[in-house]
């Protein structure tokens, strides 16, 4: 109902404006609804001038505040809780060692249960592609797990790269 009244308000406002302007432009009185366009522009102008200062005046301060955040933190704002430094390191290692784009398997699987971390890690590790099958993977990314379990299970790992406790990267022996 409010919308109907708003529409009627614009129509009535337009007709009233035409009546007001009728002396200056008598031809307008033949088209009373022509004023609707003028009222729309008038309201648009008021809203524009009112809000442009409001938004614009806050921008320099907001820019200064945002500039204080480090580029690394800003680039990883989507999931600041993830071990972004490790993911960044793992991506560079995979690219550096293999020199081309391959596939990886994220271990342990419980990482995938956290939807944010699961998706964010696949974004951070681009251009490497995640696979859900260990047999297809060329790399294993150990996130809060460490490679000891994989070693204990006797998986064929060609090379292990340690980042920190619980975080490592392993090149499978079937890799390129």
């Amino acid at each position, binding site marked *: 109902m*409010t*919308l109907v009244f*708003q*529409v009627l*308000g*614009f*129509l009535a406002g*337009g007709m009233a404006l035409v009546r007001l302007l009728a002396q200056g*432009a008598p*031809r*307008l009185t*033949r*088209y009373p*609804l*022509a004023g*609707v*366009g*003028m009222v*729309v*522009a*008038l*309201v*648009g*102008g008021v*809203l*524009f*001038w009112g*809000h*442009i200062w409001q*938004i*614009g005046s806050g*921008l*320099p301060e*907001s*820019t200064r505040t*945002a*500039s204080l*955040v480090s*580029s690394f*933190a*800003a*680039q990883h*704002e*989507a999931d600041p809780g993830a071990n972004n430094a490790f993911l960044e390191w793992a991506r560079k290692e995979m690219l550096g060692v293999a020199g081309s*784009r391959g596939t990886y398997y994220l271990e342990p699987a419980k990482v995938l249960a956290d939807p944010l971390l699961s*998706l*964010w890690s*696949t*974004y951070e590790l*681009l*251009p490497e*592609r*995640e*696979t*859900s099958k260990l047999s297809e993977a060329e790399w294993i990314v150990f996130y809060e797990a460490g490679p000891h379990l994989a070693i204990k299970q006797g998986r064929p790992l060609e090379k292990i790269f340690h980042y920190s406790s619980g975080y490592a990267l392993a090149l499978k022996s079937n890799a390129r």
Partner: protein
Amino acid sequence: MRAELGPIALIGGYCFAGLGVLASLRFIRLSIGSVVAALGLAFMVGVAVVLLSGIALLCVGAPVNIEVLGSLMALIGLGGFGFAWWQASWRRPSWARIRLWPLMQPIRQAVFVVRGADAEHRVAAGVLIVLSVFSVLTYRWARVQPLEAWDAWAIWARKGTLLLDYSHLPTAFFTSPVYAFMHQDYPLLLPLYEASWFRVIGSADTQSLHAWFWVLFVAFLWATAYVSSRVVRPAIWAPLVGLLAVTPEVWTQLMTMYADVPMGLYLMIGVLLLGLWITGQRRRDLVLSMVLLAAAASTKNEGVTAVVSTFAVALIVTLVAPAPGLARRRALVPLLAAIAAFAGMVAPWRLWLAVHHIKGDMPVARGFEPSFLLEHTGRIQPTVNALFSEVTAQSNWYYLLPMGLALVVAGLATPGLRRIAVFYGLATLGAFIMVLWGYVINPNGLGWLIATSASRTVVGPMLIAVAGTFHLAGALLTHAFQCSTPDPSRYPSGHATATQGVGVRLERSE
């Protein structure tokens, strides 16, 4: 150095390609004023044409790197200018002469215009100056913003980064079930737009990417002013352009870097040009409209549904009430040809999806089955309520809907404007119905769906209503005054010189 000069070169490249297209369609003439006025539209058209070509190349397995993008820009720009020159040399010898103005002449002219401007032009100049300062401030602000909105990195920037890393389409990512969350069927224009930015700045920097989205928005405001100034007086279009710039649902959503607003920007200018074609029957409006609508449909799937409903309305309007003096069949032929051209522009991506058996999560085919729809009727009412509550939240939309509706009502009550009022009214309604249909057939839970997307999915239909606001506000006034509005010098030929919608007096050249 690369971070500073790269973006300038990229913007220049897109503008060059767009100017070529505009010149070939005789939208612009070779004068500094004409070119500068059309730069916003040129950027949007350049992005559309270059990236649609890029998508077609990707779909046939070709790489799209910076060299290919640069070549496309050069080819399209030079081809367009060449075609314009060829046309001119055959039809208009004066067009072919490239005059070298004294450098100071345009500046003198500008000073003269400002001094001699009437109150109406001063209002427009004031709005544009304030908007320019606002644009610079926002650009500086945008380039340091972090990327945090979910879909922005999970879908769009991810695909942009993939296109940066691989150059060609990495099919494995688009076919792997592990990556189903990135909606593998979503169109590629926005990721390719992002990838072109990443390429010129040298990395997948998601902070500065915000500035790239802002560039598109500034170009859109510029293009809206340029296109609408043909039928709307400066005192009307200037405040409305300003209003669009500060409307929270438009500019704050744009900065989330989702695809809804970029799609809406293309949709709005495309629909406005289609509306101008309906009233003026200038074929170049129709051609340009198809390019921009193809860009909208290649940005987001909601763009496809909005464009399809707009085409249906345009066909109905053309069929039921053809332009004065035109037989139904003659009126329909160019529109049908244009729709076929549109289909050709969006086809490569759809064919690629079909070839690789990639499907979206929407049961589109079942969505036409009456039994399926009947089973889901319970979703209609909550969706309508949610969408209605979004578009009537005036703190978000600044009264754009009641403005548009009032103008449609005024247009319907004005005999000469009924066709165009019906077009915008039904196009807006049709786009809303398509959004509603999407919610009804969507397999996801309605509560979650509404909470996460209702504010975004209304952007397209709302911007169609805004296109109508621009056109109808101008047409109503022009109709009342019965006088010419456009600046004839802008258009070399074929420009509208009387009230749009009342029966445009055309100097037809097609």
